[in-house]
């Protein structure tokens, strides 16, 4: 997620090595062999292969989602681990009957595991991770909540103002603009990539596509590139004399040409479009992983019944990937809310408040305006939004299924 960061994060590849080739067996991943440029990566493919290579992805199970995201923005993925949680419940000592069945040895039952005798051992193993996590993630979150109740310029004395910072936000033009912009960005970051991802994944799932590995890798490529680099590339494209305007002029649309990132009306869609470019590969891969679990028989049966590609898509493909759609939406919506790097590097929230987003407001208030209390209040609102979206979208997804 996180990132990614959630948001996002952003794995992927270049050069056309077949990207999710493990899951790709039913999808004709052989086409990926055409990517000659990456011989080094491919040559290791069989040598280090764990047993599961070449197997179909299991027909059930949760979604391969989280890792595709930026740290700190990963999210609801665990909700899709419900089956795993059930297992764990069974393994806990409390569910004694199940435990007895699993572990016939009466002695073993009271030990943390076969190789662990001391009851303190599990806690000792967890302790180092917990200390770092608590000190540098949990505690700062609590401190942010505390900061949000004060007025403080970042140095010197602070004044307790209760919930005033939150009350002020309700009539704060920049904050309201940030929320409004985030809602618009959701269309570009989540809705458009979902539509594109569905179409692309369905194509991969349905037809034997030669060079599938190549296409998958290329479309996924934007996810690996640091957002700073992405910003440099797109600023260049959007520049008044950049390729986009040149192309528009070349086809006679001079009237449309403009400095895209400096135009109050065009800046937000321009930033959003970068988000679409960024997220479509992630969504495609998530959906593809889900679709590759649909058994071939289902498609065969539909075809025998005379269903065309569109009918087949709505009758079989779409209902089968509800879980993946939920995960993709959660990740991309959160990415839209916290698209700090891109906004900071392309527009700095401007012109005016045209492209500001909550995460940019947090930074700008704390470190430019020196309103640490107000910045913390925005940060807490952002955190609550992320939590709410996680819960909300996941609930909707559960109800739909």
């Amino acid at each position, binding site marked *: 997620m996180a990132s990614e960061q959630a948001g996002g*994060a952003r794995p992927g*590849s270049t050069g056309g*090595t077949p990207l*999710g080739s*493990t899951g790709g067996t039913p999808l004709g991943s052989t086409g990926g062999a055409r990517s000659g440029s*990456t011989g080094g*990566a*491919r040559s290791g*493919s069989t040598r280090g292969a764990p047993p599961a*290579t070449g197997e179909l992805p299991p027909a059930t*199970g*949760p979604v*391969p989602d*989280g890792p595709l995201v930026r*740290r*700190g*923005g*990963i*999210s609801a993925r*665990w909700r899709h681990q419900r089956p795993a949680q059930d297992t764990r419940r069974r393994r806990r000592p409390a569910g004694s009957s199940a435990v007895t069945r*699993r572990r016939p040895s009466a002695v073993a039952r009271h030990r943390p595991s076969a*190789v662990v005798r001391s009851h303190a*051992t*599990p806690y000792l*193993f*967890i302790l180092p991770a*917990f200390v*770092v*996590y608590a000190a*540098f*993630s*949990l505690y*700062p979150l609590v401190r*942010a909540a505390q900061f949000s109740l004060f007025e403080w310029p970042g140095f010197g004395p602070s004044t307790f103002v209760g919930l005033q910072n939150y009350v002020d936000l309700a009539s704060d033009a920049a904050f309201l603009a940030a929320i409004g912009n985030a809602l618009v960005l959701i269309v570009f970051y989540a809705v458009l990539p979902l539509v*594109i991802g569905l*179409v*692309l994944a369905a*194509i991969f799932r*349905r*037809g034997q*596509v030669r060079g599938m590995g190549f296409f998958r890798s290329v479309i*996924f490529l934007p996810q690996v590139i*640091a*957002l*700073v*680099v992405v910003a*440099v590339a*797109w600023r*260049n494209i959007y*520049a008044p004399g950049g390729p986009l305007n040149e192309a528009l002029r070349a086809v006679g649309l001079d009237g449309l040409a403009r400095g895209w990132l400096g135009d109050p009306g065009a800046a937000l869609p321009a930033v959003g479009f970068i988000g679409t470019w960024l997220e479509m590969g992630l969504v495609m891969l998530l959906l593809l992983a889900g679709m590759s679990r649909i058994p071939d028989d289902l*498609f065969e049966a539909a*075809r025998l019944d005379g269903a065309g590609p569109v009918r087949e898509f709505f009758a079989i493909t779409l209902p089968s990937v509800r879980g993946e759609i939920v995960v993709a939406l959660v990740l991309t919506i959160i990415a839209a809310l*916290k698209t700090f*790097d891109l906004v900071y*590097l392309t527009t700095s929230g401007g012109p005016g408040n045209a492209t500001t987003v909550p*995460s940019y407001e947090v930074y700008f208030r*704390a470190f430019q305006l020196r309103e640490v209390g107000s910045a913390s209040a925005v*940060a807490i609102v*952002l955190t609550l939004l*992320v939590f709410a979206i996680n819960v909300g979208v996941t609930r909707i997804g559960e109800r739909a299924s």
Partner: protein
Amino acid sequence: MRVSSAERTMNYVVLGVFALFALIPVITILATAVSPQIGQAPGLHLANFLEAWKVGGFGRSLGNSLIIAAIVVTSAVTLSVLAGYAFGTMRFPGSTVLFYVFLLGLMIPTEATVIPLFFDLRTVGLTDTYAAIALPQIAQSVAFGTFWLRAQFRSMPESMLEAAAIDGAGPMRTLLRIVAPASVPALTTLVVLVFMWTWNEFLIALVMAPGGSLRTAPLGLANFQGQYTAETALLSAGAVIVALPMVIMFLFLQRHFIRGMLEGAVK
């Protein structure tokens, strides 16, 4: 599955369009990176990379990035292995609650923690240190890593642990000799993910090192952009330099990484 040739053609058109859409910015930046600077003769200017490297101080910022990535990856993976091992293979009171506390970490946005982190670490004089940039990232990665490896370790047959117990192995020995070696794909995936997140991290590096001496590669590029807005050729060359290490890492580890991801995710 057979599809009609008309549909197949249509499929290629759609895929081609989106592949082109994905590639255009990449091609643009590569082309710009080797284009002539203002006032130079047209042609292929590979020297842009050398100049960008020198002017942008990328030797230094890439070095910083590498050191921070090494610290974060090593620490985060080590801590996650230990915690994931406990959650994945041991039964103990409070394990569920503790695990949910770790899961919470997957949802905490960096934006929310970075303000207090900056001011609190400034108070104790830790800003502008490697620790200040690395520790918050370790904390976030540990939340994910614990979650990720717990799933991996849970999937191991209990008979493996029982066999180790019969051989007289303790928990640490079992982890190092049996559990970890059997989890190489999942560990590889985790290493790549954490490396990528750390390499591309912007906000933490921006806030925690205001002095500029510990600038990471993305920050070095942002700074470069501030100074050389007009010189797009140099700027693009710098951008390519910053993006390259991540891309190379993927070329080499991609197959392992994807496999680990798909396997790990279905547990």
